[in-house]
């Protein structure tokens, strides 16, 4: 058999990000540009607060990576490089909306008001997600790829039946786009005209697999096969993501149905702390994406436009240090669960089987207590 894999014959490269359908409002150099379909009227103060979130969200990631290296976390899924996609989407959501994240949406969680320390609990192994989804309108992390897109769609069908004008937003990745569940969610959302926004962070990689292993055309075009619009936005441009996400949520609210948003971005770190990207991608790729850094461009804009000065950036740094300290202290203070609690919350209504097993474990544990006396 040929060394060249046959299936690559006639396989066109996935379309580059450039092109008319690519929505960008702030260039990598920090210049504001307009897009006919997505006008964004935003004050410098708002941009400053977006900048602040971007910095804080990155700091959460930096700190968590450090905590993992120091053995305080079992694992961490880094969002480095995806701050703009997550803050842009997160800030577009209102309290009426409900977000359905994967395991990487720390930035969205932050915008939704989830204490990042709670997120750490999941990666430290002290909980499987300690926050109350209804409190924040932010569902628990979903690790099985794609599942949450159906949950978001069902939730949106519930919103329709309640006559609510809220919307659901489902987060997923480029790899997830291949899962049956995600495509079924597209079918349901389209057929029931559900108020859901499918927010795909295309970070170019599914662990070690490049985008070409999932699709041969731009992902946002998947939507047209299901009868609803798709749009590709510069995922490293927080303004563009904010504008596009707001527009998509608006469409959903007014009863026009689902939208697929493809945020074109890059996973600058490893898939998780267990991963070793050097085995499957070139450092050069990372370098080119560094030039499109989601935070630098906002800083450049704010500085150049004079909207923000040294004092502002210093204050953000201070907030960031404070957050880091809070994270570290909070993480170390996370209590190990009492073993017997592993029986809690399996059911809302309890179970005779679990009562029996709980009793077995506690008397077994008690036997050591006695032994140690």
């Amino acid at each position, binding site marked *: 058999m040929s060394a060249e894999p046959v299936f690559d014959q006639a396989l066109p490269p996935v379309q580059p990000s450039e092109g008319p359908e690519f929505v960008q409002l702030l260039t990598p150099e920090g210049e504001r540009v307009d897009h006919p379909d997505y006008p964004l009227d935003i004050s410098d103060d708002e941009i400053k607060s977006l900048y602040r979130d971007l910095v804080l969200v990155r700091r959460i990631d930096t700190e968590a990576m450090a905590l993992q290296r120091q053995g305080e976390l079992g694992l961490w899924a880094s969002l480095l490089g995806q701050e703009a996609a997550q803050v842009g989407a997160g800030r577009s959501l209102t309290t009426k909306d409900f977000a359905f994240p994967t395991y990487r949406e720390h930035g969205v969680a932050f915008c939704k008001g989830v204490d990042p320390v709670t997120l750490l609990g999941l990666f430290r192994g002290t909980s*499987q*997600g300690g926050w109350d989804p209804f409190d924040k309108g932010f569902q628990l992390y979903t690790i*099985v790829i794609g*599942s949450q897109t159906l949950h978001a769609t069902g939730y949106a069908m519930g919103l329709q039946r309640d006559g609510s004008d809220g919307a659901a937003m489902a987060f997923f990745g480029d790899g997830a786009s291949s899962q049956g*569940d995600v495509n079924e*969610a597209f*079918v*349901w959302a389209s057929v029931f005209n559900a108020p859901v926004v499918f927010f795909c962070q295309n970070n170019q990689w599914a662990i070690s697999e490049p985008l070409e292993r999932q699709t041969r055309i731009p992902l946002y075009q998947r939507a047209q096969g299901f009868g609803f619009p798709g749009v590709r936005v510069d995922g490293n441009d927080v303004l563009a993501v904010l504008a596009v996400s707001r527009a998509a949520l608006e469409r959903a609210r007014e009863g026009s149905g689902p939208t697929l948003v493809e945020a074109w971005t890059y996973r600058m770190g490893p898939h998780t702390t267990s991963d070793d990207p050097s085995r499957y991608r070139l450092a050069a790729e990372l370098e080119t994406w560094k030039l499109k850094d989601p935070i630098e461009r906002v800083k450049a804009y704010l500085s150049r436009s004079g909207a923000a000065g040294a004092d502002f950036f210093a204050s953000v740094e201070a907030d960031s240090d404070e957050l880091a300290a809070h994270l570290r202290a909070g993480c170390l203070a996370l209590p190990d669960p009492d073993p017997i609690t592993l029986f809690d919350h399996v059911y809302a*209504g309890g179970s005779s089987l679990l009562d029996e097993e709980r009793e077995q474990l506690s008397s077994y544990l008690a036997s050591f207590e006695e032994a140690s006396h």
Partner: protein
Amino acid sequence: MATITLGKALNEGLRKAMESDPKVVIMGEDVGRLGGVFRVTDQLQKDFGEDRVIDTPLAESGIVGTAIGMSIRGFRPICEIQFDGFVFPAFDQIVSQVAKMHYRSAGNVKLPITIRIPYGGGIGAVEHHSESPESYFAHTPGLKVVTCSNPLDAYTMIQHAVASDDPIVFFEPKRRYWDKADLDLANLDLGDPADLWDARVVREGTAATLITYGPSVRTCLEAAAAAADEGREIEVVDLRALSPIDWPTVIDSVTKTQHAIVVSEAPVFGSLAGEIAARVSEKCFYSLEAPVLRVGGWSTPYPTARVEEDFLPDLDRILDAVDRSLAY
């Protein structure tokens, strides 16, 4: 008093459930105008509207996955899986999401979902329409599993299941849909919701205990009747709940009869019958006069219709097992 089939009893039970809670919705394939291929949802879309009785696209994972989302929004979905063999595309959503979300969320997210599955063989159907997958679900922590064997239980159990705040897989004995009983639904007392978890001694006896559920209950009752003609009084226990199992009722019976035979249609190897036999063997170690025997399907895929009678546990194979047990 009116004569009602098991299928119609389920239909009436679903109607009551929808009347008593506006958040109850039914989702599935052909559950609307058609009323389901077994007519269990007959007339419900007409009376409750398309928003509450939802004909979904043809994809089981989508049915269960969107039902999860609707419950997160506060609804109480009843998912119909058209046939036992078609639940597997939804297996991931059931095992990794429905079963685990309440635990994952430390009790914050309740999923009061009822997943209805017509199951079992004996109707001369083609492949995938006669399976008994209950063991997969009973072995899945976070799920509760029940099954009915007669019209009265069908009517009450489906209502208790829908009212439960836990996800419940509700197995319906397909070939018993047409079994009849005389019931006065109007004045019928539903009883305590906790009854859902009770096994029932449906026939008293002293010689041996048949532990069974769902479609095999009737077969066991027929076997017990036949044995009675030969002067043998056999007790029949209808488990009703497969997870959790009402052990005291089972163990009391076996402690009394000292002989136990587990009967179900599923291939015996690795099935729930093993759990029952293992547990009874342990708890009745000193009272058992014979090992717990198991009668069920063979360890083959469900065979073609013309030989299914030789696959299914029938009256003779059950009595044969009783003889073998008593011969110890």
